[in-house]
């Protein structure tokens, strides 16, 4: 089939070869399926993500103001944001926030907290062990596994570089 038929509906209906027909159909579907505007989404993510981080900065400043040192203030801030995220998840508000903010709610620590709390709420009915226990990390699991794996790998690279006095 010629190139002009690619992605056109006649390239789907008239194509005798199934593999080529499927390729044409996938192209055609891509053309007719509406998608989000990536720039609009980026802007929304920037604003919502920025607001979350500004709130975080506010907490850090506040904890330092009431006497914590910088390290301690950061830890307290993490705890506070995680707590707020879980609270909003439980109340069904975080989902609505994420629908608007997209990656802006996913990237900060609040997104991670949401991904752990949401399955816990959902699978509670299936019991403490097989429900919450087994399924709480269905979304966050890969992040934890590959996060630990990556830090292990980097640790080894760091160790080798150190042996050769590169770093």
């Amino acid at each position, binding site marked *: 089939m010629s190139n002009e038929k690619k992605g056109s509906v006649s390239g*789907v209906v008239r194509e005798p070869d199934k593999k080529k027909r*499927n390729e044409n*159909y996938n192209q055609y579907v891509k053309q007719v399926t509406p998608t989000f505007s990536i720039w609009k989404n980026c802007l929304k993510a920037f604003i919502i993500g920025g607001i979350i981080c500004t709130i975080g900065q506010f907490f850090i400043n506040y904890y330092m103001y009431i006497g914590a040192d910088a390290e301690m203030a950061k830890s307290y801030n993490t705890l506070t944001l995680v707590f707020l995220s879980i609270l909003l998840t439980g109340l069904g508000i*975080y989902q609505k926030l994420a629908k608007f903010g997209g990656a802006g709610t996913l990237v900060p620590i609040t*997104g991670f907290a949401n991904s752990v709390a949401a399955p816990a709420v*959902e699978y509670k*009915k299936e019991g403490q062990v097989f429900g919450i226990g087994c399924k709480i990390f269905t979304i966050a699991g890969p992040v934890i596994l590959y996060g630990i794996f990556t830090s292990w790998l980097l640790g080894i690279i760091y160790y080798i570089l150190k042996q050769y006095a590169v770093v």
Partner: protein
Amino acid sequence: MSEIEIRKSKMVGKQSIIFHNPPCIIAASSVAGKKEGEGPLGPLFDIIFEDPLVGKDSWEEAESKLITDAAAKVLQKAGLKSKDIRYLIGGDLLGQLIATSFGVEDLEIPLIGIYGACSTMGEAMSLGAMMVEGGFADRVIALTSSHFAGAEKQFRMPLDYGNQRPYSATWTVTGSGAVIIADRKYANRSNGEALILIKGVTTGKIVDYGLKDSMNMGAAMAPAAYETIKQNFEDLNIKPEYYDKIITGDLGYVGKNILLDLLKENGYDISGNHMDCGIEIFDKDSQDTHAGGSGCGCSAVTFTSFILKQLREGIWKRVLFVPTGALLSTVSFNEGNSVPAIAHAVIVEAE
């Protein structure tokens, strides 16, 4: 085959059946959730549950309750008891059909459980009509259900997980629809309403055009609807105008356009008489349902409320009801397979 034998055969073309003594839909019921109740078809539903858990502890139990109530309501409307029903044919979206199994437990009707994903209503009605016309049953119930939260939990993400739904995604309908199919001698004609007959069926094949995006079910199912509808036209040797409406199950806005395109390429223009239950059931702008409604319940409650009403009131004389199903599982999706789809067509006429 002699001419008489050919004339006696109910098989028509490659995949269709035309009944000699068309069975009758003597009663129908529709049970729906709050969001569906707020939609354009809301006033037509028999029962609307405001509580998404319908007073139960889990989504799965809630869906069973929808089935139980749809069955009870259809029996009540027909003035029958469960012992008057020979078979119950039904299924749902949950793994191992648990909504149906638990939902019909107390009815004690011999059960034929089927899985056709969102095409289940078409499959159940086809089988029910064949059984009644073949003399294997006098009255059968065909029913199905789906629940938004149960489907999200099984096929997608936990409800409270923060993510964005693409524009091509559909919204699973919370609802259950049931019909009683019976020999026409059982039909109650006292109220002067039109008799609703199942004239014939076209059973669909698995159709897979290699699409892998499970968030674009309309595009995955449109080829299945296209092939079944085209087959129906060819088998019966008819034109699209033969039907007042050609009604697909849950293609949504994306799938509808694809279906129209595919059929047009074959010389069939159904843009004037096509309707999609997924588009009818929600108001996309005010209810934020993106591509439209989906799920077994989508075509079932639309059929048992709106479509039957139009037929009974004589606004439509003959429709082709084509529920569409995407037969993927979370395993097949994770293993990188495409989405196989199916569509079953049922010819429904008012007399």
